[in-house]
């Protein structure tokens, strides 16, 4: 074997901790030779550089993409995908559910409503408002809203 390769492999084995007993002690004795000490320093430096030059983590979203491809994505993540896919349908269903519960119409329009009724309906109202705002934004980008009459009727705006 090439003597340089032999020294290189001894250094690698020493740094890996696989050079045992007498072989390790002999190597340590050889470190008094300047070329062996220099080779060890270079090997350590090269290892350090090679270790530090690749990213610790994969790019964001890659693992999630793989999960979806393999069909093993977590249920909540699949839910999030569904939600972003059907915003209009979700907003419309939310609105219909709200319309069924008459008292909220008064609250949304600013009329006084019994506190108990409002407390119970507030979360639903907030959800509908958020949905309506989203629909409004989306419609606003493409001209007059198909939903504006409906939204005005239920007191959530839409009067453009």
């Amino acid at each position, binding site marked *: 074997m090439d003597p340089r390769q032999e020294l290189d492999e001894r250094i690698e084995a020493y740094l890996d901790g696989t050079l045992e007993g007498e072989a390790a002690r002999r190597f340590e004795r050889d470190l008094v030779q300047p070329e062996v000490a220099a080779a060890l320093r270079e090997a350590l430096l090269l290892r350090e550089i090679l270790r530090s030059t*690749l990213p610790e983590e994969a790019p964001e979203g*890659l693992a999630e993409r793989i999960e979806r491809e393999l069909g093993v994505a977590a249920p909540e993540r699949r839910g999030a995908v569904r939600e972003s896919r059907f915003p209009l349908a979700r907003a419309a269903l939310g609105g219909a559910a709200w319309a069924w519960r008459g008292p909220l119409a008064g609250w949304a329009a600013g009329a006084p409503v019994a506190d108990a009724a409002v407390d119970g309906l507030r979360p639903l109202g907030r959800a509908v408002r958020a949905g309506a705002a989203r629909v409004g934004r989306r419609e606003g980008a493409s001209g007059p809203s198909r939903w504006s009459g409906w939204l005005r009727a239920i007191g959530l705006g839409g009067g453009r």
Partner: protein
Amino acid sequence: MAAGSWSEGELVRRCREGRPEAWREMIRRFTPLAYRLSARMLGAGAEAEDAVQETFSSVHRSFATFDDQRSLAAWISAIAYHAALRRVGRAARPGGAAADPDAAGELRDESEPGPEQRAAALETGAILDEALGRLAVQDRALLALRYREGLSDSEVAEAVGMPVGTVKTRLFRAREKLREWLAPAFEE
């Protein structure tokens, strides 16, 4: 017990049972390794990401063939290495100049940068990237597996399908070239 604390054996057993949470854990644990290896061979970016996706499709499909006596890291490295190598081959073929992936590392523009560019490059680690880019793609993979992923010579040999002696010799030559090319940086 949280998925993150499962032993490798536990993870393998649960994946064999087809549990989605086990597969998510498998992907979480080994995507960084597969990406680093692919990035070292193909360059960071979309091509490396596609190679990682291909790797996990293959891992998922062929998991029944995984031998419990082997290390998962070495097995997944082997699949990732071959997925990236196929892409190197495909990328090289249309031009016809580098059908041999050994030569693919030589395709880069090696025009010499000026002193100012050189100083800036040293700061950003670009000199090392340039030096690694001059190595054959297999040698870049060997170095990444050996030093970044901490695989032993025999695990590296298993991953890349080469005899251990060949791996040792190729690693020695790659280190020698890097020492030579990086000597100016070492001296500063």
